[in-house]
């Protein structure tokens, strides 16, 4: 299967709750890591080595395979100045690209607006999961939020197919033919029709897709499968978003974190296999991020909120490798017991916007940020 000229898409996997960077990209060659993490560490003999200093968490096998193929970029020590350790606020900062003020518009919603200023395609941006993450929210930007692709749309609770069809038909009539009556009625009519249309189109996606890849039954893998189905249905979806968690591992971290990364790495591995099978490896890039990393010292069974984390970009078009320096574990370099981030997250956003989605980045991320060259050909 060859892909005809298609536009590039971004797939975002948000790790909610604060992924423990130190146990994800493990500095196993550094004695200070084991000093600080006396209980909650990955033993040297379990790490999947990258080099003699760093290694992946043992649950990240599929990511390591992609790394070996040169398709994984690890962005070390990513964050922003004056780290905020509140989940909500820090996620807000990532979502709005506004570390100082309280931002109003999601960075990806702005990107969607720039891609499709007139909102011609109701599926330019799609979230898989319920509710819209702030990253995709902005007044006037239509983004579909798909809880379950199989039942997405209106009246999903109506089991009787004939009844549902009659109800949808009635809905379509009730939301049509109102132009010029009253602005609110018009808006609702248009929006209702958009929603119907989006649902109708999205429902066709699973039928337009076949693949030998078998995704695991967990929620992330299923959402990623939906992403693949919609992406491969060529509906013009440019931003596809989902999230997984909770990574808030204050206790029992080793078990929980391993399970979560097993699911994340597994889903990423499947997606990349799927893209390869469809010859679309160079048309999608995956961004994986979390709102912050965790405290350097463990608390005996888990780790508390910290700062400085890792982001990943994965895809056929990615120049694989390590980007940015791994933050020092030396006490003099820490901020309040946390890693000092040395790479601004908006650099990665800038890179994605300019070199992948072909947009003007400064207006979206509120400033100029140096790029790493992860996506430059």
């Amino acid at each position, binding site marked *: 299967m060859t892909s005809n000229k298609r536009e590039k898409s971004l797939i975002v996997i948000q790790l909610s709750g604060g992924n423990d960077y130190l146990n994800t990209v493990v500095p196993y060659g550094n004695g200070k890591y084991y000093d600080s993490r006396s209980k909650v560490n990955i033993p040297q003999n379990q790490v999947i080595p990258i080099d003699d200093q760093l290694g992946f968490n043992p649950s990240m096998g599929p990511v390591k395979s992609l790394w070996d193929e040169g398709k994984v970029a690890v962005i070390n020590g990513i964050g922003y100045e004056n780290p*905020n*350790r*509140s*989940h*909500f*606020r820090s996620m*807000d900062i990532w979502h709005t690209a506004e570390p100082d003020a*309280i931002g*109003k518009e999601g960075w990806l919603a702005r990107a969607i607006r720039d891609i499709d200023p007139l909102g011609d395609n*109701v599926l330019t941006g799609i*979230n898989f999961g*319920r*509710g*819209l993450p*702030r990253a995709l*929210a902005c*007044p*006037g*930007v*239509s*983004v*579909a*939020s798909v809880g379950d692709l199989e039942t997405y*749309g*209106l*009246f*999903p*609770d*109506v089991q009787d197919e004939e*009844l549902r069809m*009659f*109800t949808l038909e*009635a*809905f379509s*009539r*009730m*939301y049509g*033919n*109102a132009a010029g*009556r009253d*602005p*609110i*009625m018009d*808006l*609702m*009519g248009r*929006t*209702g029709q*958009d*929603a119907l249309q*989006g*649902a109708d189109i999205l429902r066709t996606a699973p039928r337009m897709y076949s693949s030998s890849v078998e995704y695991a039954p967990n929620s992330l893998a299923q959402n990623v499968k939906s992403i693949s189905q919609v992406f491969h249905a060529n509906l013009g979806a440019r931003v596809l978003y989902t999230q997984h968690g909770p990574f808030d591992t*204050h206790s029992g971290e080793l078990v929980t974190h391993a399970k979560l990364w097993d699911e994340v790495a597994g889903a990423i591995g499947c997606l990349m296999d799927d893209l390869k099978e469809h010859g679309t490896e160079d048309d999608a890039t995956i961004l994986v991020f979390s709102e912050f990393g965790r405290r350097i010292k463990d*608390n005996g069974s888990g780790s*508390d*909120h910290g700062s400085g984390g890792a982001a990943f970009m994965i895809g056929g078009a990615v120049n694989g490798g390590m980007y940015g320096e791994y933050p020092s574990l030396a006490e003099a370099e820490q901020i309040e017991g946390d890693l000092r981030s040395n790479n601004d997250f908006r650099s990665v956003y800038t890179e994605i916007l300019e070199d992948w989605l072909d947009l003007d980045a400064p207006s979206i991320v509120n400033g100029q940020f140096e790029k790493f060259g992860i996506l430059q050909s």
Partner: protein
Amino acid sequence: MINNDTALMAHLLRRAGFGASRTELEGYMAMGYDGAVDALLNPSDPGNMPDDLIRRYHVEQSELRDLAGSAAYWMYRMISTTCPMEEKIALFWHGLFATGYAKLNQARSLLNQVEMFRRSGLGSFENLLVELSKDPAMIVWLDNNENHGSAINENYGRELLELFSMGIGNYTEDDIKECSRAFTGWTLGNAEYMAVRASKDSIWPYGRIAWHFDYRDEDHDDGEKTFLGETGKFNGEDIISIIAKQESTARFVATRLFQFFAADEVTEAGDKAIQEMIATYFSSGYQIRDMLRTLFHTEYFRSDEARFSRVKGPVEMVVGAIRMSGNYQNPALGIEKVSDTMLYMGQGLLQPPTVEGWHEGSEWIDSGALVERVNFAAKELSDVRSPGVRSIIDRLQASTDDGVLEPSDLADRCLDLLGPIEVSDETHSVLVDYANRQGALDLNGHQPGDSAEQRVGNMLRLVAATREYQLA
């Protein structure tokens, strides 16, 4: 065909409450319109389950340090209250003095703020601003704990003038500075420690401690200040009393009340109502209750023009549908999921997006939110097991001599009992066609969940899915 008194009372209850079932409406009808306005504006016992019982038996609403439990608890209060205006005014102030969990990581302090809105939200606006300025959640939200005699932080001072009272263009940058100076020393107990805890958002290992207001005289700038042309050694209360007497404040408060309690857009006739509210603001000594009484009695409010002139906010949408279905009258598992639904529609309680609150009116409508709104209301109101829908079925049967409803009657009476809702001719003909598909409905001998009842549920589903149902 629609009974005018019923329609007017339903309109009042959508504004001063979250809409009303027919049984509730009949209770207010018995008081007459003036009596109903007074009853609504003078809340007594809201009749919810006492907090100590909730704490003991309902874990889903007990963890008040948490956002989820606190939002569910407030939603339960809205669903179960017999004094809907008390919750509606709290929701109004929550949107206007928008304070959010994101920065505080202290949901209990937000619930305390909401309780303050219940207590003081219908009283004097001047007093409300004083309470607001002493509210711990607000102090942290807008950094007044960082506002020191030696170095002012203007965040609260600025928003007090711009977003909470006069509005931009009615004061100078110097006024902001002087206002901020007057609020130095208005902080919370153990402020430094609390700020660290809030920033770390970690309930481990020491938990979070309740916040309380603390005035630190030694941190207060006692010097002379000139604010809006007046000079003196003003403290915060003095500044607020100057703010309260401004014409711009009266207009601001009246307009915001109007847009929440009357109509999204201010028309010429609407502006006349605002003028009357401004007059009441001054004549009553800034009483919110009196301004609303004036509003509810204006010709504008009682006219057809004001009806269905607001897009329901997500909280109104969800709470309104549930009050109609009669579910969740007691705390119950699953209520957190329902309160999440409001978030999916764009309005999470206790988590306004910014200090500017939510953008209302047409901005509630986008394709994601509309799907959530329609699906939620359609499901909630089509379930023939719920007590509210059962009561609608009984009323439908009782409305006929022989228990048989013609298709157009089925449509009309469902519209009536869910509102009354006025719909366009197009919508009406779709509803009638839908009913016609199965001919006349015989409700004689109906049994819970049988096909006759289900037809009522199907019609209610479709009414809940209309554009008109999206409006209040």
